């Protein structure tokens, strides 16, 4: 039995009885046991998965109605609440937190009989892009365990890449789904803001982040979006997108489509191999009949500074809830002065989280608010305007997902500004609320390179069609692990 199947292939195999849910789930658990000591994609593995698989097999045998996922093992980033399974956010402050409810995306997946195989590693509270800032230690890249898997959804990307789950859900605030997707050679989508409910996603920067699927095929991304997208009364930032079937017509091709190559995201400061790959992808898309032209979105140059200002500000306010009174851990019962109690417990935030809270408080404090926070909001508005203007001229935009290939663990951990620069191609989609997908495109020297495609507001269907066309041109090896 092959674990490297797509969701579609898995469902076919279950339906025609070549494999049972229990067989597949137990084989997946074996794989996790075998490789996760090296990769460390998971924080928690769901002990109950095998029982759930057996129950579904019984239902299938009795010809009872079973949901579309048919017991497919899915991994979930550990900042998405799952009832009865720990949700730690890779933070010491939440190390024992068990949510009493499911996030909307989880209840939708459960209604379709997906099996949560485990919760995946991340940078603490999703703040980072290498998965090195986890209080449980880093995840390693399945392509080469000396290298970072990207982040912050690094555990999810590694789990999909190493066949420890068929698909996964991550969250993307500034590239946290697309960056690790690119580094681990899987597909990763940041949906239009409001298309997927954030209810039950532990908040980091509410006005920017979205939950997004990660998978080994575009079709699987589309399949997951059919399940998780849609309005939710528990998140009033969700929008009505109409009844779109994302899987239908995936194969229409991109002939006649106009694709803008974002000048500010090409060449300068970029690793040579990445630029070459992107040029190669562009010429292949042209061979398929797409019309590619350079396009400028000048505010991209300010996007990272604006992004970090806004997210640090929102984070400093969101993390104020961790006072160790409603969530947290035991301290003993000796007496504490109220403020000392809180500050002593909050000392357990990791360095990166403390840094962002300090920054967020700084940019919001009187005297600096106008200089940083308001300016960042203005940049965000300018980016939105420029992106809208670009989509009046073209149907899609293209860039490398990350300007660099995967790098070694520890290489950039102490260089904040070097890490910032890695975000330059991804944050624009978050600031402009538009969808973007990372498509695995090449493997050079044993390490993956991903290409990013953007589409206009709610144009996911077009985005998937383009990503599908591009991916059909590639023939990539499976990850070696």
């Amino acid at each position, binding site marked *: 039995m092959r674990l490297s199947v797509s969701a579609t292939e898995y469902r076919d195999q279950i339906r025609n009885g070549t494999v049972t849910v229990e067989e597949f789930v137990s084989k997946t658990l074996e794989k996790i046991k075998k490789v996760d000591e090296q990769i460390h994609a998971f924080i928690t593995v769901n002990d109950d998965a095998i029982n759930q698989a057996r129950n579904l097999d019984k239902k299938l045998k009795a010809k009872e109605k079973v949901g579309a996922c048919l017991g497919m093992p899915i991994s979930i980033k550990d900042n998405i609440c799952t009832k009865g399974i720990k949700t730690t956010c890779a933070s010491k402050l939440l190390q024992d937190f068990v949510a009493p409810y499911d996030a909307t995306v989880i209840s939708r997946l459960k209604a379709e009989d997906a099996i949560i195989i485990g919760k995946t590693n991340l940078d603490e509270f999703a703040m980072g892009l290498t998965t090195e800032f986890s209080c449980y230690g880093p995840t390693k890249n399945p392509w080469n365990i000396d290298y970072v898997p990207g982040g912050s959804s690094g555990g999810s990307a590694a789990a999909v890449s190493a066949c420890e789950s068929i698909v996964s859900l991550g969250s993307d605030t500034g590239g946290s789904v697309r960056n690790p997707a690119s580094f681990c050679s899987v597909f990763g989508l940041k949906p239009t803001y409001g298309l997927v409910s954030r209810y039950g996603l532990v908040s980091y920067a509410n006005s920017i982040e979205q939950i997004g699927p990660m998978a080994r095929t575009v079709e699987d991304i589309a399949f997951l979006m059919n399940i998780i997208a849609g309005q939710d009364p528990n998140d009033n930032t969700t929008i009505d997108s109409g009844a779109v079937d994302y899987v239908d017509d995936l194969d229409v091709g991109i002939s006649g489509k106009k694709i803008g190559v974002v000048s500010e995201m090409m060449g300068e400061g970029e690793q040579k191999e990445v630029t070459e790959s992107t040029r190669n992808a562009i010429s292949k898309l042209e061979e398929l009949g797409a019309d590619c032209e350079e396009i400028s979105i000048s505010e991209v140059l300010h996007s990272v500074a604006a992004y*970090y200002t806004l997210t640090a500000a929102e984070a400093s306010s969101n993390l104020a809830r961790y006072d160790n009174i409603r969530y947290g851990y035991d301290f003993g019962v000796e007496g504490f002065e*109220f403020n000392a109690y809180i500050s002593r417990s909050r000392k357990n935030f990791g360095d990166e989280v403390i840094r962002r809270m300090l920054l967020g408080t700084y940019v919001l404090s009187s005297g600096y608010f106008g200089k940083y926070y308001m300016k960042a909001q*203005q940049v965000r508005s300018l980016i*939105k305007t420029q992106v809208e203007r670009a989509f009046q001229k073209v149907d899609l935009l293209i860039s490398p997902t990350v300007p660099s290939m995967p790098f070694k663990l520890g290489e950039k951990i102490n260089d904040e*500004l070097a890490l910032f620069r890695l975000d330059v191609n991804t944050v624009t989609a978050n600031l402009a609320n538009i969808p973007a997908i990372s498509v695995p495109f090449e493997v050079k020297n044993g390490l993956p390179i991903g290409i990013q495609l953007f589409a206009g507001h709610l144009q996911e269907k077009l985005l998937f069609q383009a990503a599908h066309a591009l991916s059909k041109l590639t023939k990539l090896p499976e990850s070696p692990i």
Partner: protein
Amino acid sequence: MVTKEEIQRLANLIKIEINETEKYVEQVDKVIRYFDTLDKISSTEEIFSQDLALENLRPDEHIPYKEKLIEKLKNSKGTFVKAPKLI
């Protein structure tokens, strides 16, 4: 230039005990210098805010929760929770 006093004041505001103030002074200063590029933006640019539709809010209903949350706490006995003494 971000100062040690500023970092201490911010740490008090966010209620975090920090020991290595110097380290944070240096790191925060480096990032703030980077944020300074934002200052070049013309300040007349209009800010779009995202308006939320207020007509489709969920009904304000009590949803009964059957499980006992108190049982999920580590230090509980009956209907009591053991907590540290705060002054």
